[in-house]
């Protein structure tokens, strides 16, 4: 994927953004090697597929969070927005019995619309992103429960629905490689997001907003419009995550989602995106999300007690952010 580090980083022998990604990548490789040596059950096709499947939802959410974090903002609503979009798909497909493509479209549009609302509240009403999206997080959590009547909405009447995440187009062609479609969708979202960040005006303004919003404003750019566009894009990506999780569970689980934003943000920072904005990559986020899943899966395979699993995960997050601080200190 494209290297979209800010120009300031490209100087000399300092720890650059590219290097940080290398660091995260080395961390991922190190984890995989250690777990493979520690347990013969780790490096099995079925387990690798389980890890990828576990990464798909958090990976997509983390990509949405990456876009927002690069602008110097934060989106705490990604988890419950995902659930909201899943519930909307449930309403369209199960309650109204409409065809599958409409459910897919509806979920993504619902995500875009909610992103537009968050973006507008932040850009026009000047509510800080942390507060605006905290509010959205709660609003969407409540709406999901209201709309669904607090019960899961099952997709039993839409037979193709589980194929979105659980089916395998590759597996149909190459039976030895039953990579779930959910994983392909994660990679597709990553490619598109990397393209948007690296090659489009929206991408350029995403970085510019995070680096120096005032300078962008003074140069006559409609800052508010671009900011709203970023949140709306992140919202539609959350819509994709909503479809993935609903398809995987064959149901929209209305109470789920809160807390998932923290895993997404963790993946973003492990991947080297700066929480202060202006710097970050989709590839780094993808690696960050994989590190979280590999860690969770590997520790489980080694039968490490659940209490200690969380301690190790927390330690890795701090180490990753410490690396980020070292990098900025050398700039």
């Amino acid at each position, binding site marked *: 994927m494209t290297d979209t580090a800010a120009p300031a980083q490209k100087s000399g022998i300092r720890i650059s953004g590219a290097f940080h990604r290398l660091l995260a990548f080395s961390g991922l490789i190190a984890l995989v090697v250690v777990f493979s040596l520690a347990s013969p059950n780790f490096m099995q096709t079925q387990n690798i597929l389980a890890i990828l499947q576990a990464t798909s939802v958090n990976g997509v959410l983390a990509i949405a969070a990456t876009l927002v974090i690069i602008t110097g903002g934060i989106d705490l609503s990604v988890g419950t927005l995902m659930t909201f979009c899943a519930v909307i798909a449930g309403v369209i497909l199960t309650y109204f019995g409409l065809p599958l493509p409409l459910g897919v479209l509806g979920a993504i549009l619902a995500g875009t619309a909610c992103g537009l609302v968050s973006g507008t509240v932040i850009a026009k009403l000047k509510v800080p992103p942390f507060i605006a999206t905290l509010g959205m997080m709660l609003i969407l959590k409540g709406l999901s429960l209201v709309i669904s009547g607090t019960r899961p909405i099952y997709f039993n009447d839409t037979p193709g629905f589980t194929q979105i995440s659980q089916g395998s187009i590759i597996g149909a062609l190459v039976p030895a490689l039953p990579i779930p479609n959910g994983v392909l969708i994660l990679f597709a979202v990553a490619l598109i997001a990397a393209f948007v960040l690296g090659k489009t005006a929206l991408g350029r303004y995403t970085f510019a907003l995070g680096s120096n919003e005032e300078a962008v404003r003074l140069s006559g750019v409609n800052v508010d419009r671009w900011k709203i566009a970023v949140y709306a894009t992140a919202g539609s990506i959350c819509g994709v995550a909503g479809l993935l999780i609903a398809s995987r569970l*064959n149901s929209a*689980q209305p109470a789920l989602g809160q807390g998932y934003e923290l895993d997404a943000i963790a993946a973003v920072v492990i991947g080297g995106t700066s929480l202060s904005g202006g710097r970050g990559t989709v590839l780094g986020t993808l690696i960050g999300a994989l590190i979280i899943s590999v860690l969770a899966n590997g520790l489980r395979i*080694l039968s490490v007690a659940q209490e200690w699993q969380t301690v190790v995960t927390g330690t890795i997050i701090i180490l990753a952010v410490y690396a980020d601080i070292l990098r900025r200190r050398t700039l």
Partner: protein
Amino acid sequence: MLNRRHLLGAISALAMLASAGAPALAQENYDIALISKGFQHQFWQAVKAGADQAAAEFGVNVTFEGPDTETQVDRQMDMLAAALSRQPDAIGFAALDSQAATPLLQQAEAANIPIIAFDSGVDSDIPLTTVTTDNVAAAALAADKMAELIGNAGKVAVVAHDQTSRTGIDRVDGFVNRIAEAYPDIEVVSVQYGGGDQLQSTEITKSILLANPDLKGIFGANEGSALGVANGKTELGSDIVVIGFDSGAAQKGMVESGVMAGAITQNPVGIGYETVKAAIGALNGETLPEIIDSGFDWYDASNMNDPEIAAVLYD
């Protein structure tokens, strides 16, 4: 470069530590993975304590995992998938959503890993058995206690949560049938359903009490129903005998203060213990009954601080 080496070193050291911390599996030891519906809640910690107790007693390796909240269905699937990859000898599973778990359960069946369902179980025919509270017997004990407290004669009523759930049906049947069989002088005048909602159960209780001024007692068939019954009793200043079900801080307080005569508690420690025991039984080729009762207890103000009772009560 120093930074990178430090960080990489730290990461691998951590991972090594983690692997060193994993229990070494002796060849003959069974490895049993329990995936529960929760982890932090006192109830689940009590289930875990029972599982650990069985693990120590029978010399097997048991792991116990569950999502942070009972809403995180996908996290539970990740845990089940990782447990399958570990290739344990048996799996104990309490499904948050049976349907979502079906593909993974089929995978376990194909890999010949026996599945033991526990707590609310799994709505599927793949599990070999389900370790759960025998709600019929538990409610029958409530009936016996009610009879004892009202002197084996008079009118009683039941306020239950619903007539569709397994626990709702079993607890009402267990109570009503026991009274009919064993206590000819006691009459169940009314069975009403309040959805487990405290307020609704309060209103129902008041209407039952107003319609039957000579009522002797009411059985509240789950936590919300029991609290509602006790509220209704207090609001009308009645002195009927109230018997509840399960615990929770509010209900424990009412038992302590005497508003409630006592309640039936399920035995989460027993659920964990019996699940591991059933898994070992399955691995040794024993035939398991469809349902394994994990036990239940009666508690009142006199025994609720006894260590073995206090251990199964939760806030």
